[in-house]
Each structure stands twice: as C-alpha cells, then as structure tokens.
C-alpha cells in the first residue's frame, strides 16, 4: 500500500509540476524583465497598446453574433426533433458532427477559395456586393458564418444533453393546453428549463470565438487572438502578459461553467 501511495504521489506531483510551471514561468517572464528588475509595466501597457481594444471588441462582437445565430438555428431545430420528425434526428446529428471531420485549416482553405470567386467571376452581378459585405473588415460576417459551423458540435452536444434531461413533449403539451401558441410554449415553458444547457452552449461558443485564430488569420482579419500573435514578434513581454490574462479570463469562464454544470447536476440528482 505504501508503494502504491508513493507511486500515486509521484504521478500527481509530476503532473502538478508540468501543468503549473509554464503558468508560473509566464507570469515571472512578464514581471521580471532582464535589466529592469521586477516591474508590472507589461500589464499596464495592455490597454493602451495599439490594436488591443479594436481586436477585443471585434472578438466580443463576433462572439455575440455567433452565439445568437447558433442558438437561433439550433434551439428550434433540436426542440422540434424532440417533438417529432425522429427520422431527421440522425441527419442533424451527422450534420453537426461534420465540422469535426474537417479541420479548421481545411475549412478555411475552402472558404478562401469561395471568397475568390467574388472578384473572379461575379464582379458584374449583384452577388458581388454580398461578397464585399461578407468581408467588411469592421464586421466580417464570413467569420460569423465559419464560427457558427465550428460551434455546431459543441452546441449540439450540450443542447442534446439538456433536452434529454427534461420531458419536452409534456411541457409543450401542458403549455398548449393552457392556450399558449407554439412560440409561447417554446419561450415560456421549454427555454427556462434549458437554461443550463443554453448557458453551457453559449460559454463554449464564447471560448471558441475568443480563442479562434486559424480562420481569422488566414482570411486576414484581426480579432483578439490574431492581435496577440501579431504583437508577439516585437513586444514579447506584452504578448505574454496578454496571453496570461486571456488564459485567466477563459479559465474563469470555463470554471464558472463547470461550477454551473456541477450545480445543475446536483439539482437534477436531488429532484
């Protein structure tokens, strides 16, 4: 037994070391600048840094739009699949898993090909304006389209788990018997019961969009993650400081989510 415990502590200690040292070292790297001693300048510079606020704002706007679109598309579809149309259920499941088979870099290769059709073939048609609007650098709609597709697997999984836990049919029928329209039944009876799953899906989508780099960089836009990358070359301290902060923010989000998930699970177990 003693040997077993020694083995266990060795594994746990090794893991703690491996996972904590890079974080501690990153913080040390940002505050202990060679030749200057301990300084917190790197963190102070973040807000004033060129391109930081526009990048962060763009990322947040993209995240809000992506969450809105993906939920508007997925929630009615998933609820309707629970109520009927069982033959469509595997179809939707496969469709929502497709993005897992196409890596982001392959996906964006396809997107950039499509975007090139605009100037090459469609410059004289009204569609050309659509292509221009899609790539508006102030708010690139094309990124929202891509992110919605990339978020589908996560959103599907969390909504599916949420819907599994409640009896959608009874809820809707009860609401309808009380005179609610289908839309009212969805909004006032089903959605409140899905709060945990909706929050879960939104958080995961938010984390995905805030950290997304591949698609945005290849298409030449500059949201938050691409901005960090672009300052990395010239201002090492600053870029690591922003990385540390963005990690902490993402972790706070995901930890909140884990806490929330834990609470809903215990609540479900109790009820």
């Amino acid at each position, binding site marked *: 037994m003693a040997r077993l415990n020694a083995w266990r502590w060795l594994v746990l200690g090794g893991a703690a070391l491996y996972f904590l040292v*890079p974080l501690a*070292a990153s913080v040390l790297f940002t505050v202990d600048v060679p030749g200057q001693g301990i300084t917190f300048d790197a963190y102070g510079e973040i807000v004033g840094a060129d391109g930081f606020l526009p990048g962060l704002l763009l990322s947040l706007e993209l995240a809000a739009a992506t969450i809105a679109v993906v939920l508007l*598309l997925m929630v009615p579809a998933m609820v309707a699949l629970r109520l009927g149309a069982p033959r469509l259920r595997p179809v*939707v499941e496969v469709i929502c898993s497709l993005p897992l088979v196409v*890596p982001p870099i392959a996906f964006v290769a396809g997107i*950039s090909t499509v975007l090139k059709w605009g100037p090459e073939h469609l410059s004289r048609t009204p569609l050309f304006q659509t292509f221009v609007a899609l790539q508006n650098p102030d708010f690139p709609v094309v990124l929202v389209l891509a992110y919605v597709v990339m978020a589908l697997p996560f959103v599907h999984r969390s909504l599916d788990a949420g819907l599994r836990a409640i009896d959608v049919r009874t809820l809707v029928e009860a609401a309808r018997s009380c005179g609610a329209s289908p839309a009212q039944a969805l909004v006032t009876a089903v959605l409140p019961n899905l709060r945990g799953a909706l929050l879960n899906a939104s958080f995961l989508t938010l984390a995905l969009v805030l950290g997304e780099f591949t698609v945005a960089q290849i298409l030449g836009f500059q949201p938050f993650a691409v901005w*960090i990358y672009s300052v990395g070359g010239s201002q*090492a301290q600053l870029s690591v400081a922003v*990385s540390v902060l963005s990690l902490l923010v993402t972790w706070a989000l995901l930890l909140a989510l*884990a806490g929330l998930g834990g609470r809903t699970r215990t609540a479900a177990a109790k009820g």
Partner: protein
Amino acid sequence: MTATLTRVDVVPAASQKRRRRAPGWLAVLPLLAFVAVAFGVPALAMLNGAFTVKNQATGATSYTTANLTDSLQGAYLTALLGSVKLSAVSALLSTVLGLLLAQAVVTSRFRTLREAVLTASGVLANFGGVPLAFAFVATLGNSGVLTRHLGLTDKGWSLYSFWGLVIVYLYFLIPLMVLTITPALDGLRSQWREAAQNNGATAVQYWRHVALPVLLPSLLGGFVLLFGSAFAAYATAAAMVGSSVPLVTLQIADAISGNVLVGQENVALALSLDMVLIAGLVMAVYLPLQRRSARWLA
C-alpha cells in the same frame, strides 16, 4: 347533430397532426440551409479545387489529379508525414500519461482532489492556440525563464523543434485523455479485482487479463481522438515554430497565402482534402470504439 359532432371531432385531430408535423420540418430547415451554404459550399469548393488546375496563360481550367499527386510528393509529403508523426507520438505519450494520472486520481480517497483534477482537465483541454504557445515560449523558449535559469541552450535544448512541439501539445492532450478515460476507469468494478485476487492473480495479471482488455476500446478511442486533435492543431504551431518543423497545417497556410510559391492554392486544397480524409478515417475508427466502450459503463 351527429354529423356535426363527428366533424368537430375529426377536424382538430387532423389539423393537430398536420400542425405537429409541419414545425418538425420547418424548424430544422433553417439549420440545414445554413449548413448547406456556410459549410457545404466551402467543402464543395475545396473538393472541386483539389481536382482542377488553372492554366496560367489561357485561364482555362481542367480536371486532373495532378494536385493530389503533388500533395503526396516532396516537401508536402514530408509535411504530411511530419504531422502524422507528431500527432501519433504526442497522442501515444498523452494516452499513457493520461491513463496514469486518471488512475492516480480515480483510486484516490480524496474526493476534492478528484473534482479538482477533473475540473482543471476540462479547462486545460480547451486551452490551446496562441496563448499556450506564448506561455511555453516564455518558459522554455530561447529567452524563456527556465531556459535562462537552467542554461538549457548550452545543453542543446530548443523549443522550436519536434520534441518541443510534443511537450507543448501534451499540455492540452493529457487533460483531454483524463476526461476521456475517467468514466472507463470508474466502470472498472472493484469486484473484478477481488475476484481476480481470489483466484490467485497478481496485480500484473489482473491488469493484463482483466482491466486492460476492458479499457482497450476506451484507450484506443481516446488515442484516436487525441490524434485527430493534434493533427488539426494549427495556431499553436504557427505561433511557436513558424515553419521550422514541417507540418501539413503550416504548409496549407503558406500555400493559401502564396508565401512560398504563387499558384499553389489548389495544392493547398488537395492537402486539405488529404487532411479531411485522414480526419474522416480517425472518426470512422473512433465512433465504433466509443460505442463499444460505452457498453461497459452502463
């Protein structure tokens, strides 16, 4: 009177049926239409582009498999193999290390430790990309904290290499493995171990003949999942090594943006198709394994 009654009875039933069926299709339709445009069109464009070449002089396009052949030759083949090797090595290491860590946590008496490790794994498994790369550059890069304080450069260490990438990839792959394998380890009943012990089996024999065969589908499934995840990773590698390690994702990015050679866009699409095929293969192996391992957890 009777006629009216039956009519009243029949009509709502019929209309209700129609009402219930219609929303089923109608509510899914926007989703299907969206995926067809936002995902289907780029995917078809990729497929089409992978099989066409454009004659630079005349501007005419023709169908060919030359792109695919090119994508499996020379530097592109090296990159593809480099990606496969990197993903396989890091997935294998994380499978073993993740299993050890998960086993240490699952058999522990402290519930808090277990909760903490699982929550942390959920967080770390989602942590990749540029911030991860920069955290490691600050730690083990050329002027990283550990590199400076331990004088690692003199010992021949470089983060911007194959093994450097492996070390970084383990940071999000091990937690992913812990999350994947923990339910399977929970599914190992203590009665099985006791039964084996009563029959005179040693710990090694128990693991070899009972535990590992039960865990095998989950382990393999986890390995394939990790492989796919490492294979598709781009941001971490791009932010860290530039292109000093040949990887297929980096090659695709270079070819799309025309960094190296002009007119390689269609080879990039062919390379993307190669990636999709490999990722599809991974999924085809993973799904049945996941279903099989789920049987033990019921």
